[in-house]
Structures are given as C-alpha cells and as structure tokens.
C-alpha cells in the first residue's frame, strides 16, 4: 500500500506524485473513476442515436442520446466477447448499437435488443433476458445546465453537491446568453501534453507564470496591435487576448484573486476587461437587457472569472465560452480536449470573440500554449530527476483567508490553488480516511 499521506504536506509535495506510475494507477482508480467526469454537452447529441466516444479514467465510454431523449453513458464494450461497440469518435447509431463481431444488438440505454440466433443458451449459465447481456452502464449520469457528467461509482455526492460553488463555471457561461443556454460548436481540438495531468491543472490558476511564459506572444501581439491602432484607429479584440500578457505586469497579477473550494475546485478572477464600449458589445448588452432587465444584465456581466477549474478534469473560461477537458493517458502523458460554445441569442460578433480565442489560444497552432507545453515537458523531466525531492507551494502559505472551507487568496500569485488541489487529492487518494 502506498503511503500517499507522507507525500503531501500543506505547503509542499513530493515529486513522486507526478512521476510514480503506481500513484498514477491509483489516481485513475480513486480520482478519475470515482468522481464526476465531464462527458459532453447536450447540444452535442441532439438526435436519438447521436453518440460520442469518450474516455473516463481508463474506461472507453459512449455518450448517447437514448430514444426517450435522455443522455446515457455506456461502457463501449459488448457484453458477449468484449468487442468495442463503436470504433468512431462520433456518429449516429440509429435505434440500436450493433456489435460488428456477432451482431448482438442493444437499445441505446444499453438493454439487449436481440441476439442473431436466440437459441443456444438453454441449459447454460447465461440467461439473455436477465440483464446479463445488457451493456454495462455508467453508475451515475447527471447534467447541469446542459453539461453532462458521469460517475463510474454508485457512491458519493450528487453532481451539484460535488460541484458546489464551482458550478458558477456553467452559470456564468449560460447566463451570458440572452436565451440562458449555450450551444456547443461541434469541433474538438485534441492536444497531448508530455507531462503529468496535475502540472496542467496547477498552471491554469498560476498567476505567476503568464508574464514570463507568454512574454514573447504578449510582446509580438502588442507591437502589431499598436501598429494597427496607428493605421486604423482600432484593432480586433483578438489582439487583446494576446497582448494582455505583455500589458499585465507580474505585480499586477497580485491584484487578482483565487478562490479555492472544496473538492479541489478553484477560480482565478478575470484580468482582461472584456467589456469594451464598441457597437458589438453595446448591441449584445441591449439583447441581454431585453432578456433579463438591466439590473440582472449588470449582475451577469459583472461576474469576473477568468478560469474556473473543476477538479480533477475540467478547465472552463466562462466569459470566452472555452472548455478544456483533461484525460490522463499515462503518468507522463495527458490529452486535452478543447471545445468552445455559442451564446444562444447573442449577436454573431460576440460568437466571433469566442472563436478568435479558440483559434488563436486553444487550437493546435496556439500562439500561447506552445510555451506552456514546453514548460510542462520540462517540469515533468525535472521532476523525474534526483535533483530534488520536493515541489514548493510555499508562496503566501499561511496568508490566505479561510472561511467555511473556502480559501480566498489575498494575492493573485498565492500558491493557494495548488495547496487546495493537493488537499482534495490527498483526501480522494484515501490518505485522509
């Protein structure tokens, strides 16, 4: 039995939590295959039979719209001989899943529909009608404002209880739509990081790194932005997404805040100031006022979150409608699945902002994450060495404010989010039990 309790101290962790394959195996079992995992959005599976293949922990799963209209999550495995039922990332299976090996067929809720030759099981230990020939289902499926999650464990808190205040990720995103909901753009960019999954999560709320890691992009964008401003008097908001790295100095990052919730979830408050006074924004605000009234519109647009991290596998940027799902592949290999959304009822120009961010920051040609991924790889390599045993999360330790289990950092560059993530990690890994 691994003694994980000894690897995590309140202000530092042992490097093996990133590099030990045995710890990774346990994380998959205890964290990824027990907690709630985001599997997709309602608008991704509009019609009965629409499906997407998705990995939950190490389990290949299928998210499918059942004939009755509800989303279901099934193991992608035929109960007969183990063949995967779908081999594509996405599609429409019609009314049934048909196994390509022996044509066992299943309803989209997993129930056996038919065997090609029903006779042959009399007197055997297998009773096809008993449920023994159904596709295994995820233990629990739940959704919140159209975002669908599953848990492979029948036990544990319900989705909303588990999300707690971090459900603001979805409220903040959906409320920004005049119609109160978002629609997924059916394109998933997949980028693999050559590093442990936790390195990415830590980076998402690390306000110390952007001015350093992204200096080159910030500077480059700022130069072109200034040139455009001189020539035309204005520049597209896209440039601001990038130049903010150059215009936000390291000390300025301290003015932002991180809010750290139970279960490892955290928020980094916003820094980009995404309410310019241009005609597009004003038209959008008018649509929001028509939908919600002025007071509520101000409340909604006043929410100022940059990243909401839903531990252990989801990074959401509500004001720009971006979502990254984390799928750990190995101790040193992490897949991110990257999506963006359209605010229903908002003008096209507002969608273009989300799209601009998606293309420039989150696509495989990212002008930003190229340097993050370089750091992640270097981090993982360094942590694999004997050059040191501990990873420091001491910054502003003891200087955070804590009330009701919620830790609020007084400084944006506090390493409170990392300490908070490991508090949850330790608990989920069984060290607290």
């Amino acid at each position, binding site marked *: 039995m691994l003694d994980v309790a000894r690897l995590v101290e309140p202000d530092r962790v042992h490097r093996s939590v990133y590099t030990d394959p045995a710890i990774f195996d346990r994380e998959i079992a205890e964290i990824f295959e027990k907690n709630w995992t985001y599997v997709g959005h309602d608008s991704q599976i509009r019609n009965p039979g629409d499906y997407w293949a998705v990995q939950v922990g190490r389990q290949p799963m299928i998210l499918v719209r059942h004939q009755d209209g509800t989303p279901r999550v099934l193991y992608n495995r035929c109960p007969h001989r183990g063949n995967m039922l779908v081999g594509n990332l996405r599609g429409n299976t019609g009314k049934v899943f048909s196994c390509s090996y022996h044509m066992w067929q299943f309803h989209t809720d997993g129930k056996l529909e038919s065997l090609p030759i029903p006779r042959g099981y009399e007197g055997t230990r297998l009773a096809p009608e008993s449920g023994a020939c159904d596709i295994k289902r995820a233990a629990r499926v739940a959704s919140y404002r159209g975002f669908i999650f599953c848990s492979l464990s029948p036990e544990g808190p319900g989705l909303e209880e588990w999300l707690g205040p971090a459900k603001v990720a979805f409220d903040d995103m959906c409320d920004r739509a005049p119609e109160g909901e978002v629609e997924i*753009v059916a*394109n998933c*960019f*997949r*980028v*693999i990081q*050559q590093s442990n999954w936790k390195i990415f999560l830590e980076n998402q709320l690390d306000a110390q790194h952007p001015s350093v*890691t992204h*200096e*080159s*992009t910030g*500077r*480059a*964008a700022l*130069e*072109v932005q200034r*040139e*455009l401003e001189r020539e035309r008097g204005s520049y597209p908001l*896209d*440039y601001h997404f*990038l130049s903010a790295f150059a215009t936000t100095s390291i000390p300025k990052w301290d003015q932002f805040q991180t809010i750290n919730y139970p279960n490892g979830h955290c928020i980094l408050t916003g820094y980009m100031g995404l309410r310019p006074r241009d005609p597009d924004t004003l038209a959008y605000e008018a649509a929001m006022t028509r939908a919600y009234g002025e007071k509520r519109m101000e409340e909604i647009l006043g929410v100022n979150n940059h990243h909401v991290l839903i531990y252990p596998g989801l990074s959401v940027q509500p004001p720009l409608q971006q979502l990254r799902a984390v799928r750990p592949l190995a101790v040193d290999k992490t*897949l991110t699945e990257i999506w*963006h959304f359209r605010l229903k009822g908002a003008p*096209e120009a507002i*969608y*273009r902002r989300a*799209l601009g961010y*998606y*293309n*420039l920051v989150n*696509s*495989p*040609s*990212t*002008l930003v*994450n*190229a*340097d993050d*991924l*370089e*750091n992640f790889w270097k981090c993982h390599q360094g942590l694999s060495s004997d050059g040191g045993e501990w990873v420091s999360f001491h910054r502003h330790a003891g200087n955070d404010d804590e009330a009701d289990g919620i830790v609020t950092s007084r400084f944006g560059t506090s390493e409170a989010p990392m300490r908070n993530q490991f508090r949850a990690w330790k608990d989920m890994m069984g060290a607290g039990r």
Partner: protein
Amino acid sequence: MSTRDEVEAFLFRQAELLDGKSWQGFIDLFTPDGVYWMPASPEQTTWDGVPSIFAEDRNLMTVRMKRLTHPHAWSQAPMWGTSHLVGNVVVESDEGDEIVARSRFHMMEFRRDASRHFAGSYRHHLRRTPEGLRLKLQRVDMVNGQGPYEYVLQAWV
C-alpha cells in the same frame, strides 16, 4: 514558361522559405488581404466564422513571426527544423490574373530528438502581380489534421 511551371516555381520557393525559417519572406508571398487557412475539418468551405487550425491574415502572421523570433519564445530554444516536399501540381484554373492550383505536400518535422509527419493537400489561390505571383488564399488540408497533436504546430505548414 507555362502556368504550371510558374506555379511550381512559386510552390517550391514557398516551401524553401518555410524550411529556411524565412518567416518574413513567407508572409511577403501573400497579397495585402491574403489569408493562410488550415480548416478544422475538410467539409469547411470558408475560413470566415468557423473553427480553424490556422486562419491568419498578414497581421496575425506577423504576430506569429514576431513571437517565433522573440528571444523569450521558450519553445523555440530546442533545435527544430522541417523539410517540405511539394508535388502532384494541378492547375485548376487560369483566368485573367487569377490562378487556382492544387498540390500535395509532405512535411517532416524534427524537434528535440523527435520526428513528426504531416501530409495533405494545398490549394493556392494566386494572383499575378507586377512583383510576381502572390497568394490571396492558401488552403491547407492535412490528412492527419484532425487527430490528436503530440505538441502543437508553431509555424505554418
């Protein structure tokens, strides 16, 4: 010189500029309103308003170039290089000053002890100008463009 010869010379020159990391030279092959586009999926018909792997006008290309050449572009520190092969050139149309040509490419990239391969089709929408052929739109469809990326694409393909 036939149109095909003219187009081939352009394509070979463009590949050479990429492999030589002559970023400004690459950008200068585009018209002032030229766009470099790598669609997110093969069904897309326009770069405007849809997710793209690249959708860059000359200004955004300049941001990319300035990033690549900045001394603190950390991911540029490891040695990396590419080799492009371009072939199967077909001139689809040649009317007035406008030429449309398609071709296939294969690019091998070497970065920090690892090789990656990208291959697919180019579609060049070219214009005859006093300076020679210039690109209004380059469409790049990679056959492996929709798969998971081991690391990212730092420069144009």
